């Protein structure tokens, strides 16, 4: 690598390929204590030679390397990122600033509680606000991400049912669910039974009635569901489950449609998780970190992970003495820095502001839907909430699939929508613009999508070989999986 090419962004060698012995990018402080000889302190057997293959580069090269690489990414800061169910909204920079305040970022998880009162208050306040938003009675902030929250939620259900004599065997999951739902149920030790969605894209209450019996522990539902439709029979679904002693779990991935408008606790949900990196604006950072707080109704509270924050006459403290608790799901107290960012977001909007954000999110999704109707096939005509789902049925007739339309969208300067999900829609295009897009950005997106729909008819090969404007052309994923090379080595170069 290192060859010049005719593109504004040049090729970039890997760190290992830039390395030369003796180059350094650091300087440690002068030692103010005598040196300890590692061989004497540890013995030769426990001491390593140098880290073979580790890079040696200078500071300026590090800055250039990562800055150049950064320009090869798409990001919300560059434009619309309409991934359905991912809620790629603007990540306020204030959140980054407050998470880095001294006293917050450098706080040690075991520092004495008398020196952590402000940090405990941050958590306590966030718990309270999330309880208000969800209409639930108690919140744990410990889970590190959505799937981790799901696992926590199912373990809570399991512990609760065990306390009533029987953990039960089965978890029901609609066929439109995110893959994490069945994966989580399996890890929590449950068998998964799939519920087929009805023709409106919703849970079929009648079909479900036949499936609910004493072996069912819970139903995991996303609401609005992954088709972007509010589950109108959710209260009946909850009633049916409760009649049989089962619990209703809600995947809160799509909570951006409900904040300030409807509270899951008021429509029968027993336990749910939130994705702070979706609804509450904390950055995705290329895949994480997130945070997946879990909110529960009163009857599940005794089972929440330890520690819990307790209010005493001497201030806030951590309480680990909770005999019914499922235990810990993570060391310390969760992704605290992410919690700080989410609280900053809630404070910026305020109660009414959060509702306004929800309104704009739903308005944007419906506006996009209106703009694309007729150009793309709409598999469900029920009203959309925060996202809208189309299929590639009209384009498939010309031999073009959703994945190819998505790649062509890249040439128009947008990140693709979610491709081929939910699974119940053949060739799905799942579009979630979020509230932080302007009308102009949406208009341009609709225009791009319409243009692609026309290209499919006029020149389908143009679409099928997209993207053509990127510095990296279509990437061969099959080749990567055939003989996986997941770490660099000298002779593995291309």
């Amino acid at each position, binding site marked *: 690598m290192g060859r010049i090419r005719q593109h504004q962004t040049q090729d970039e060698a890997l760190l290992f390929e830039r390395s030369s012995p003796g180059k350094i990018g650091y300087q440690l402080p002068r030692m103010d204590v005598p040196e300890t000889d590692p061989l004497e*302190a540890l013995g030769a057997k426990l001491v390593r030679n140098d880290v073979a293959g580790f890079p040696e580069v200078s500071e300026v090269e590090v800055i250039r390397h990562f800055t150049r690489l950064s320009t090869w990414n798409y990001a919300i800061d560059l434009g619309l990122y309409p991934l359905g169910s991912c809620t790629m909204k603007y990540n306020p920079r204030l959140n980054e600033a407050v998470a880095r305040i001294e006293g917050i970022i450098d706080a040690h998880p075991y520092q004495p509680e008398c020196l952590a009162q402000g940090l405990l208050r941050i958590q306590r306040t966030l718990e309270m606000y999330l309880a208000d938003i969800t209409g639930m009675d108690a919140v744990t902030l410990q889970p590190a991400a959505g799937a981790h929250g799901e696992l926590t939620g199912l373990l809570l259900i399991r512990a609760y049912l065990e306390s009533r004599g029987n953990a039960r065997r089965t978890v029901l999951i609609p066929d439109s669910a995110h893959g994490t739902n069945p994966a989580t149920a399996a890890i929590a030790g449950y068998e998964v039974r799939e519920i087929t969605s009805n023709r409106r894209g919703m849970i079929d209450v009648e079909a479900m009635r036949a499936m609910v019996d004493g072996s069912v522990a819970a139903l995991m539902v996303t609401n609005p569901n992954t088709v972007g439709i509010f589950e109108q029979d959710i209260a009946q679904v909850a009633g049916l489950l409760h009649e049989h002693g089962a619990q209703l779990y809600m995947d809160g991935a799509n909570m951006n449609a409900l904040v300030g408008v409807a509270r899951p606790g008021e429509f029968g949900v027993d336990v749910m998780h939130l994705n702070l990196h979706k609804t509450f604006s904390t950055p995705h950072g290329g895949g994480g970190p997130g945070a997946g707080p879990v909110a529960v109704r009163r009857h599940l509270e005794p089972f929440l992970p330890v520690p819990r924050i307790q209010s005493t006459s001497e201030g806030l403290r951590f309480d680990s003495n909770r005999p019914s608790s499922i*235990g810990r799901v993570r060391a310390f107290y969760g992704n605290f820095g992410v919690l700080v960012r989410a609280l900053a977001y809630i404070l910026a909007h305020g109660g009414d502001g959060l509702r306004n954000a929800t309104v704009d999110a739903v308005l944007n999704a419906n506006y996009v839907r209106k703009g694309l109707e007729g150009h793309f096939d709409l598999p469900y005509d029920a009203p959309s909430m925060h996202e809208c789902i189309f299929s590639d049925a009209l384009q498939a007739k010309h031999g073009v699939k959703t994945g190819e339309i998505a790649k062509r969208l890249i040439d128009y300067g947008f990140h693709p929508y979610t491709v081929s999900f939910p699974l119940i829609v053949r060739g799905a295009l799942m579009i979630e613009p979020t509230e932080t897009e302007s009308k102009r950005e949406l208009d341009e997106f609709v225009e791009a999508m319409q243009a692609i729909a026309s290209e499919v008819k006029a020149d389908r090969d143009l679409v099928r070989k997209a993207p053509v404007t990127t510095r990296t052309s279509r990437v061969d994923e099959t080749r990567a999986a055939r003989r996986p090379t997941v770490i660099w080595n000298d002779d593995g170069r291309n």
Partner: protein
Amino acid sequence: MRYLPKSPAERAEMLATLGLDSIEDLFASIPEPLRQGSSLAIPAGQSEYEIREYFEARARESGRGYACFLGAGAYNHYRPVVVDSIATRGEFLTAYTPYQAEISQGVLTTIFEFQTMVAQLTGMDVANASMYDGSTAVPEAGMMAVRITRRERLLVSRALHPEYRQVLDTYYQRQELPADTVAFDPETGQLDLADLEAKLAPDVAAVILQTPNFFGIVEDVREAAELAHRNGALLVVVFSEAASLGLLAPPSEADIVAGELQSFAHPPSFGGPYVGILATKQRYIRQMPGRLVGQTLDSHGRRAFCLTLATREQHIRRAKATSNICTNQALVALMATVYMALMGKRGLRELAEQNLSKAHFLASALQASGAELRFSGPFFNEFVARPTRRSANEVNELALRSNVIGGLELVRFFPELEGTLLVCATETSTREAMERYATCFRRKPDG
């Protein structure tokens, strides 16, 4: 509101396009009785200035300006400013998971570099793109070992971080899988190999040990590996102090390495977000949890990277996935990658040597002032001290008065270690602060 980019006129225009009279019509699909009964009780939206002040006030209610000798899974290391310069770039900060490889080569390339450096550090063949943290990487490693060996029992060192052990218990008990603990030698603080040998049975899937262990003591991985392998079990090696890898022999004899990279440029941040790692041998790659980036070519034959072996993952395999993990800790992994690049081969070594020297200096200083080392095993940058002239609690109370946060009182996790402190020193511990802490171990000054 400053985060909502629409004027009232634009909203009205959009509503008109949709043929709606009011914004309430947008929610017509939510049955009336299911709509929110009351508005949110959260106070009105605040300015940037007010929010900053709010968090500054919370920070003032917490410990600022203290020298800290706590480690125990969260370490104070210096963070070069370059790390944040890179990690706050919007192109990294605000990107999603790199599923669309053509416009995600930045993230993908850095993850590939991360995987490579983690493998080099741990002496493993392959590493994944990250786990939530060290504590959750442990049960994932355990479940992986169960899949590989088709056995069920785990043998877990009692000197594994107690909170990691608690997380493992939560994951494991609910699956009704058996796990036993292996004692530590009360003299050396190292894993009791005789106890391990006695407990190794044909149903043991893996032995899980940490090095340096929770007490800061370096374990002999080789011997544990031999015992485990002789019994057809795998060895899982865990670490919570990544800085030790600059100096300690890599745990190449392990089958799986699970650890925590917080030490590499992420501050303690009251417990998170951190970044877990999981590395293993090439032959187990298809049993790994989590995302993996692989090398490939683009349609012009140029090197490119993409997410690979996704058939292990929940979005493809659903209930049969190797794990339910989806979101990981990519941005923290990026910070660690930048840090490792800056420090390089020499820097990591020098860093580890400084940590070793500082901790040994502090141990001597405490011994001179009134403490004994509880364990005789070799230690890296943490050790267990038993104050001999005051109680552990008294020492720490005194220390707070001179702006020092002392070591962790171990009685919290180990009743038999009552009266001891787990004390940590890093390259950020100054001689002056260490001596200030040592003073607190002395007998009450006369007069």
